[in-house]
């Protein structure tokens, strides 16, 4: 005989209490609460067929006044009468009861907001000061013609092109050297790792001081007094090609000098993380491969090209993906180094633009549109690189 699915009541109750809260805050029409309560009541009625004590579950209908009741009543019921349950039923009950606290928080703070962001992006200038008009995909149409959005996107592109390969290359070299049974491993690892656990706010404050046009250390080191790193909107390619008499404009002028300065700081900050991850990856490669290669007379380069590189590829791929996604979320460095987004908004990134639009200009719907486009871009890029790159990744050791 089939038994009464208590875990279903529990789960429906959890959803119901979330729904009541949502309705109270105005995210959900009251009618839906009625539907939810009705379904809950039906479940309880069905339960009575399995025994009259299930009528106690009807107390969960108090959720209308006290939302957690819908979840707590089935839970208490199960704890009190659950002794005689079969192992399978206990599993179902405990599984759901343990999962629900985290799941509810994820639903509230991650799943629902994702949809709500899309919903907000369909309105015209939402700022909750006045009723907003539905405008369909108008925000997206404006976004695609917004030069600042393209500037931010271009900067994100340069960020990936500059920081990811440079960071990975440097980190791989350092990790390989650290993996050669070098003395003072702990000291070196600490040196490279410390920037990563340093708060970006503090690190950026120091770098701003290093980049200072008059008294900065970098200008003294490079003998370039007065060079204002963080306020030079000119592209680096344009700056480099200028002495050769070549003029480049727009996108091909490259990232501004200010943005290059920000990227240099970012490479410094994240290098330690990459080194630690790569070192862990290196240590997972069996020593026998290298010993066999040495017997065959392989050189240092051959060993690393034919053994280390392919066997390290899952780690490199992981770091590459992380760098790609991270590029879309660069905010703190930019905010501290160039609080206004640089001269002519030359250090604008997607996250920074979103912050400006949402919290400076109070245009939540446009900011949401930026967020959704970012989401789609990240999703698309992840899928593409999985298709193209992951085929070359060697997961078996």
């Amino acid at each position, binding site marked *: 005989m089939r038994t009464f699915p208590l875990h279903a009541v529990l789960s429906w109750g959890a959803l119901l209490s979330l729904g009541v809260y949502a309705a109270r805050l105005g995210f959900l029409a009251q009618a839906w609460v009625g539907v939810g309560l009705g379904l809950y009541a039906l479940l309880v009625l069905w339960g009575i067929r399995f025994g009259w004590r299930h009528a106690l579950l009807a107390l969960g209908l108090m959720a209308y006044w006290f939302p957690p009741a819908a979840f707590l009543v089935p839970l208490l019921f199960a704890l009190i009468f659950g002794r005689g349950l079969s192992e399978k039923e206990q599993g179902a009950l405990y599984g759901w009861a343990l999962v629900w606290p985290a799941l509810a928080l994820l639903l509230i703070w991650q799943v629902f907001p994702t949809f709500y962001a899309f919903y907000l992006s369909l309105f015209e200038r939402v700022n909750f000061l006045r009723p907003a008009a539905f405008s369909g995909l108008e925000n997206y149409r404006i976004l695609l013609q917004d030069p600042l959005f393209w500037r931010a996107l271009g900067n994100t592109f340069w960020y990936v092109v500059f920081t990811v390969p440079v960071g990975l290359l440097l980190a791989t070299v350092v990790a390989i050297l650290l993996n050669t049974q070098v003395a003072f491993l702990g000291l070196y690892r600490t040196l490279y790792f410390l920037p990563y656990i340093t*708060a970006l706010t503090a690190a950026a404050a120091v770098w701003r001081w290093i980049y200072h046009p008059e008294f900065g250390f970098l200008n003294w080191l490079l003998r370039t007094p007065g060079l204002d790193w963080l306020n030079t909107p000119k592209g680096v390619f344009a700056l480099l090609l200028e002495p050769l008499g070549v003029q480049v404009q727009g996108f091909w002028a490259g990232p501004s000098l200010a943005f290059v300065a920000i990227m240099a700081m970012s490479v410094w900050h994240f290098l330690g993380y990459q080194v630690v991850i790569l070192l862990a990856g290196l240590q997972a490669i069996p020593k026998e491969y290298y010993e066999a290669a040495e017997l065959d007379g392989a050189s240092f380069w051959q060993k690393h090209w034919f053994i280390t590189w392919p066997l390290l590829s899952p780690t490199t791929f992981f770091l590459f993906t992380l760098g790609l996604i991270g590029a879309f979320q660069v905010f703190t460095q930019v905010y501290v180094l160039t609080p206004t987004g640089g001269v002519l908004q030359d250090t604008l990134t997607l996250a920074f633009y979103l912050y400006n639009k949402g919290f400076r200009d109070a245009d939540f719907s446009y900011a949401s549109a930026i967020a959704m486009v970012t989401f789609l871009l990240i999703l698309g890029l992840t899928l593409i690189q999985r298709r193209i790159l992951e085929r070359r990744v060697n997961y078996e050791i």
Partner: protein
Amino acid sequence: MRFKPTSLLVHLVLLGGGVIMAFPFYWMLATSLKSPQEALQAKPIWVPERMKPGNWLKAARLGDSPLWGGLAPGRSVELVFPGEKGRPPKAFIPRTPGAFFDPRADGTRVEVVYREGAWRVRLTNTTGEAFRFLPLVVLWPKEAPLDPPLPPDALRSQGEDWRLEWVNAVPGALGYLFHNYLEAWHAAPWGRYFFNSFFTALTQVAVGLFLAALAAFALARIPFPGKEAVFVLILATMMVPGEVLLIPNYVLLARLGWLDTYYALIVPWLASVFGIFLLRQFYLSLPQDLFDAARIDGAGYLTQLFRIALPLSLPGLVSYGIFTFLGAYNALLWPLIVTQSPEMRTVQLGLQAFVSEAGSDYGALMAASTLVILPVILGYFFAQRQFIQGIARSGLK
């Protein structure tokens, strides 16, 4: 061990990179110990005066307490300038610009006398309150050789004289060394900031760990209907970048009336997909026999979780704890959005506000930055292995 020439090369490369990585930290520390005049030099000063132990001894003789200095009511301090008896130097307490009433300048008796081969500047506190610091300016004739009792914080030329300036003539050894730190600490409510940051981060770690452990155990060890669906949902939320959540979560917090409260800083980040995955991996790697044995002994799911799974997954818990703490402590964007009042600022926000207020006082700025990163750096040195392994574990699939 036999000496290999290549290992020397390895050390050279690693050390060179390490110096670059560590330089910003040294520069932060060195600048935090500089007087404004030392900081604002086109040619950098590698070792500021306050870093030299000889000067600490000199400073220890000035002021009531050898460590923290100060000048209590009725007490006096004598600064000795050895030299010939020529044109007498002048000494005075500079007035705070714009201050209507300045007890230090008005209530300190300054006497300059020549006795036993030295000019002596005697400062006496004639007020009823103790001075924590006491600035001093001495005009010293240029023709006489200069040998001040403590290196001045600024040395300028003023007509026929050298103008020697001290920000504090009664520092004591620590008060001298940490002058900028004290300045920065008193300029903003750092105690409150630190409390906010630690409270936020530790609550997130504690509650987050508990919730993640519950959910991860259910997903790893309990068979229940709908488990695959829950797992896929959790996987899917991992795809959503953090930026998408900024606006909708802000709106949600606003509707709840939680803006500018601890709830806003803590609650949205309690459920962590990363934590659930990490702990799930750990629980899956534990042998099933362990749980079977426990079940035969009559242990329920909760006993299995708290008596077997949790203690055995301690490394995973530490790893998650370190990650969450670092993320919460170092975060800037989220606290920036959801808090307004100075009482709710976290240290990163406090530092950011300090950066924009401190202007060109780079000594105090770097001192504040050092204070902000100090807890994490100290934590790293106490639990180095856990830090490295915890971070390395995040890269393993």
